[in-house]
């Protein structure tokens, strides 16, 4: 995995996740603050005023282009390269009111870098394709509004660090698809025909929370178990797929146990649940706000612990294995 490490090691971009993470919460708050400003009707917040005074002078643009005051030129640094290596490239690019980082990347494609590679799809935060790192923080490009930055900020966009680079902002996320295949699937209850399933809303809600996952793999990218330890990928499914096991385990009608499959033990012994030391980084980056650690991983860990130290379970396991 030397290639993806080079990505962030290549430059002095603010790419230290350790340093970024505490700041992330406050930048989100700042985002909300600027959001409420806009909602109160001030054209684009008070911070914009000094910028506007200087903006026409700095960029070499035609001042008579009739751009509204909410439009400005931003300084972007975008990582460009391939598995052989690459670098951060500087761009000056127009930003308009209400835009998100993905809009700016698209503008770069259309006007300055036609072959700039980026994955995207729905542009509405529903498909989880446009994952990347913005100023060192794993985020969806389509859900990161430009208004969360000051006009003078340099916005640095780099590919997901935990996965090998394919080109520019596109990484090879096949690790995730490999892990998905290793998780035993839902086992339908043998005695129920289609249409006979009965479940109460409160019983499906726990698993439903995890099924909100859009598979953006930001949690996989940020999880320190693999982010800086390529060697752990073999034995660690990552938060997304440990959560998938919790989802199936909490499914009211999953019949895995009838087939002798204990999902908790499997998560612990085969998929690396034990590596997780509940730092909650995954929960922090989840664009769907799923409480991965609290609601999926910790309960799984607790049940694994219960099972391990419950003498009856222990005895049961011994007997069942013998048969």
């Amino acid at each position: 995995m030397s290639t993806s490490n080079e990505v962030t090691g290549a430059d002095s971009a603010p790419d230290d996740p350790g340093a970024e993470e505490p700041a992330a919460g406050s930048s989100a708050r700042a985002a909300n603050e600027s959001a409420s400003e806009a909602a109160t009707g001030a054209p684009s917040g008070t911070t914009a005023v000094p910028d506007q005074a200087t903006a026409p002078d700095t960029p070499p643009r035609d001042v008579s282009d009739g751009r509204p005051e909410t439009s400005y030129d931003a300084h972007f640094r975008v990582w460009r390269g391939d598995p052989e290596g690459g670098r951060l490239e500087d761009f000056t690019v127009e930003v308009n009111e209400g835009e998100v980082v993905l809009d700016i990347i698209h503008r770069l494609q259309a006007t300055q870098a036609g072959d700039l590679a980026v994955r995207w799809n729905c542009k509405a935060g529903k498909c989880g394709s446009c994952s990347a790192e913005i100023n060192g923080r794993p985020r969806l490009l389509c859900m990161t509004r430009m208004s969360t930055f000051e006009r003078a900020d340099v916005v640095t966009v780099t590919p997901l660090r935990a996965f090998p680079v394919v080109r520019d902002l596109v990484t090879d996320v096949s690790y995730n698809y490999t892990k998905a295949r290793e998780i035993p699937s839902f086992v339908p209850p043998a005695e129920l025909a289609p249409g006979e399933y009965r479940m109460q809303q409160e019983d499906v809600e726990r698993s439903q929370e995890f099924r909100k996952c859009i598979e953006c793999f930001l949690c996989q990218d940020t999880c320190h178990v693999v982010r800086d330890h390529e060697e752990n990928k073999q034995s660690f499914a990552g938060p997304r797929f440990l959560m998938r096991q919790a989802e199936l385990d909490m499914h009211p009608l999953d019949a895995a146990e009838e087939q002798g499959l204990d999902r908790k033990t499997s998560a612990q012994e085969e998929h690396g649940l034990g590596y997780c030391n509940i730092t909650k980084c995954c929960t922090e980056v989840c664009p769907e706000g799923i409480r991965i650690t609290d609601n999926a991983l910790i309960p799984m860990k607790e049940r694994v612990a219960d099972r391990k130290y419950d003498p009856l379970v222990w005895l049961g396991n011994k007997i069942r294995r013998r048969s």
Partner: protein
Amino acid sequence: MTQVERQQWDVVIVGAGGAGLRAAIEAREQGMRTAVICKSLFGKAHTVMAEGGIAASMGNVNEGDNWKVHFRDTMRGGKFLNHWRMAELHAKEAPDRVWELETWGALFDRTKEGKISQRNFGGHEYPRLAHVGDRTGLELIRTLQQKVVSLQQEDHQETGDHEARLKVFQECTVTRVLKDGDEVSGTFCYERESGRFFVLEAPSVVLATGGIGKSFKVTSNSWEYTGDGHALALLAGAPLVNMEFVQFHPTGMVWPPSVKGILVTESVRGDGGVLRNSEDKRFMFDYVPAVFKEQYAESEQEADGWYDDPEKHRRPPELLPRDEVARAINSEVKAGRGTPHGGVYLDVSSRMSAEVIKRRLPSMHHQFIELADVDITAQPMEVGPTCHYVMGGVDVDPDTGAATGVPGLFAAGEVSGGMHGSNRLGGNSLSDLLVFGRRAGLYAAERAAARGAEERPAVDETQLAEAVAEALRPFDPTAEAEAGEAGEAGEAGDDKPAENPYTVHQQLQRTMNDLVGIIRREEEMAGALERLAELRARAARAGVEGHRQFNPGWHLALDLRNMLLVSECVARAALNRTESRGGHTRDDHPEMVREWRRANLVCSLTERAEVGTGERATKGDTTPGRITLRRREVSPIRPDLLELFEKEELIKYLTDEELTTE
């Protein structure tokens, strides 16, 4: 000649959304080795964007529901232009397709009895949409994806190879369906990541590529919706039907500009949301058309009573079919009663508690907070029409999904035409994907099984060479354009510079949006056809920088061919149909005309553009020619299905002649 890797499969499925994955599951379960090829990553298809639900008359919330009621609603929604057989199969099979999802692990919202909950939606007489909050499409795609994985796990256990019988080629694009004589022999594809070409040989190819929205400027559709399957079918010699019918969803976001067009689910209205203009008036009461007068409320009081007691009240007019609501919003804005950003208000904040809104419409709440700084529990949303869905598509056999005229080619889902007539009801798309995805997979498998290994159609070398040349043209566009455009635009020999594909695309989107959009006029559409011809000439010169590794400029340059072909179909058919019906509204022909209900407009490609005919086999000359349009009479609705309607209602749609020949 370029060496191109070839693989042999039984069934190839183009597209991995709801229809494609359902088809793949079926073909694999029939024992066929099945390849799925999709432009995005596995699990990202546009189906994830579907919000409201899957329509299926399970009768879990109102026992009065059954397939006949669903059939009736579907036909009404489509203004009786639907292929009645597709509407019948759809209504009958939808419940089984939904229940089956539960056995694969889907978790729908529940009723108090623990059954699958069902919600109200525009045009549906009873609460009918199985749903998961407002993220039903995600649940559908994930369930199908996980079912695919579970089949792969079975194969792995048996053969040691996950992909022995079912493989997903993700981030790959098909640019040609290859043929051996009349019948399908496979697909020509490139891998987006490496730019590498390859061929999947198969006697059955299922198109499940979705829609065409990316030809329009304001759309709820993702980048994948470039009409690939529509164009592939045309290029392979299969006709398209009903292309004039494009659905503009009434409620897309209108602000900020960068998110203009993103969908605001119809569930907002199904759950009680109301539309108001800048004068705070619930204007939909003024827009109930004559054909629907009996079914919709006339006062706010009556409309509000319906949510709790639907037996004694008529439905709120906010729940009219989408075409009606979209036109109404358009009229209000035009009349100067729009919001500051050119939409109307859609309000749930005054109708439900914040807690209920967050539970029932979580992604809408999230979407507006994140993208527009609007808290929908406290403020109304601003919404306006957005290009959402194409009713038209590949002309197929209703039972099997087989494309007309090209043995071995099948189509299912949005890329196929007929099922929804002139307008699709909300919720009928997800069920369409499952019902007809399964059918196409089944019959594609049947066809493949009938062909032994020795009698498989062969890949034609000339076609292959042409497909390679066509795909490489954007890297050297001007050299090829002279040969390719000579007959097309009469500008042979002009030393014109290469075109930026992004610029051509933007102009195409503007042309379609402004001239063949929600309200249409003859002169504008004629103008659009001229501009499309110019754009086609320019697209042939689309050039790109860089190389073939994950090069979005190149991908777009290739997609332009498809968008231009499909746009021409839409414009040509829309110009021809001199009436207004469903997703086709003519300012100069505002009335629905009963005689027109008997006509399908069928688009096919003019002869000379076909590949491999040998006629114009010069390097790279595969520029699509113009579209030929013909009128075809629809097949008469089966009498027992007609009997499901009151005579008074049929009179509004059917000609006297049709009514008397019963």
